[in-house]
């Protein structure tokens, strides 16, 4: 190997080490028994693979008065994340379509106003949103939580789709109109089939954001639809009694599995999707 390739690989491996370190710590801890955690070094390898913590985190750990582990929360999260991602992505696509292909006076201004919304800190929203949801009877209801996530995600999904559709040549809509296609036909038959890459990007982005959200999940969910971050928080963030770090870490990894899987499986399409124009700006 030539020297500059060596330097390249050296740099890449160092970086990889930096990125993997926390994951290693979590994995190692999750596979240790509690005694080992108490006594051993943080960075040492587990002496034997102990799956006890994983089983406990998934099925039997207490997260409040139920001691069913993270399992029910996991499915709650799935039930919440699927509609929230689907709706926010669909609306983003429609908004992007109108904002690029059917501009009208003031549409850019509307978009800029919406875009500013990505900067709004989520804490500001909590109380007023509760009040509003209360008026509509959506407080502590799955629908309310989905609504909040959709609204919070709207600026970014619109931004992603708009930037992508900016790259779609204007002639395409013209050609379709001459061919006799209307507003919806063009969207369904031409634009949407082209949107694969950006849909992947948006779905990944929204999926991780919503799946990992804690604050909205804690505040706007009801008794029987609390998302996994709340479960994990209850598992890991108790401050007034004995801590089981191995269970915490196993739980943390279980909670992260879907998002990790999404990145590992769809990561390729993610970069490809971005390449296809999401960031051309």
């Amino acid at each position, binding site marked *: 190997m030539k020297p500059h390739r060596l330097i390249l690989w050296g740099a890449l491996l160092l970086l990889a080490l930096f990125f993997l370190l*926390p994951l290693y710590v979590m994995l190692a801890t999750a596979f240790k028994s509690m005694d080992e955690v108490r006594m051993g070094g943080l960075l040492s390898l587990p002496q034997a693979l102990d799956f006890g913590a994983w089983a406990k985190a998934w099925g039997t750990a207490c997260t409040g008065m139920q001691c069913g582990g993270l399992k029910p929360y996991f499915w709650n999260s799935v039930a919440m994340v699927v509609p929230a991602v689907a709706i926010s992505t669909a609306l983003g696509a429609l908004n992007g379509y109108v904002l690029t292909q059917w501009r009208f006076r003031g549409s850019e201004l509307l978009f800029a106003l919406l*875009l500013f919304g990505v900067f709004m*800190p989520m*804490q*500001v929203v909590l109380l007023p949103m509760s009040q509003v949801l209360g008026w509509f009877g959506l407080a502590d209801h799955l629908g309310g939580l989905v609504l909040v996530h959709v609204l919070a995600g709207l600026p970014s999904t619109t931004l992603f789709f708009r930037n992508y559709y900016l790259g779609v040549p204007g002639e395409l809509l013209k050609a379709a109109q001459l061919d006799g296609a209307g507003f919806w036909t063009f969207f369904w038959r031409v634009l949407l089939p082209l949107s694969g890459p950006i849909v992947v990007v948006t779905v990944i982005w929204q999926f991780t954001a919503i799946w990992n959200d804690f604050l909205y999940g804690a505040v706007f969910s009801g008794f029987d639809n609390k998302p996994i971050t709340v479960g994990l928080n209850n598992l890991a963030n108790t401050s007034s009694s004995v801590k089981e770090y191995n269970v915490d870490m196993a739980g943390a990894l279980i909670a992260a599995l879907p998002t990790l899987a999404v990145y590992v499986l769809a990561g390729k399409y993610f970069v490809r999707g971005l390449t296809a124009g999401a960031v051309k700006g």
Partner: protein
Amino acid sequence: MNTPLARTPWLPKLVLAPSFALGLAFIYGLMAWNGYLSFSASRLLPNYEWAGLVHYQALWGNERWWLALRNLAVFGGLFIGGAMALGLLMAVLLDQKVRAEGALRTVFLYPMALSFIVTGTAWKWILNPGLGLEKLLHDWGFESAQFSWLIDPEMAIYCVVIAAIWQSSGFVMALFLAGLRSIDDSILKAAQVDGASLPRIYWRILIPSLRPVFFSTLMIVAHLAIKSFDLVMALTSGGPGYATDLPATFMYTMAFTRGQIGLGAASATMMLATLAAIVVPYLYSELRSKKA
């Protein structure tokens, strides 16, 4: 501009209407609501009695708030700069046709998938001198090695920066990599024929060509910086003392832990106003240049 005729000119607007109406009401309605609260006598719970500027006065005189602002400047600057630089570096390295690109990309990207509830503890351990890296170095025989930023009020904010960069630079890498990949291959060839070496090609041609990507990325990283909340909460809870407080954590603590909703609202308003001052001109220029 592209203004084709349509039989139903109202249809596009109609399609946009519901989500924009909701979205804008959500954003601006709540901003207004928050603005009002900052002038109200709200304490534990919202209270709509007018109280004037008291909360702004309190904020002005609050040392912790100024520290939070200073921290935001330090954190924001270093985090945005660091994440962009590291992300760009990784993108350039990965762009060298490395064999394991897919695996490395995933490694750099995965932190984005984890919530800080998850990784905060791990980072806390790693950065803690008695548990993590420093101890490891000591165990390896480097007795004099010192890495105790996390417990030093002056330096703790830099730990937050490190963890934040760790989380976001992979995403920045993805954006830049995508940008690099979308540059026409033949430009690279032309530069070779013109006699430029590889580092020069990157420095003079490819990286400058990423200008639009820089802007999008800046936008995303900046909003992550401003919204950083989980990160600080999980890593330092604002400590030691309140040395790593940021406006977002300040606002949360005041409004929700301390029953000073009015003060929290005032801090949020200040934050939004500052942001608007920075972001609005940027958005304006960005969207204007698109039209041309």
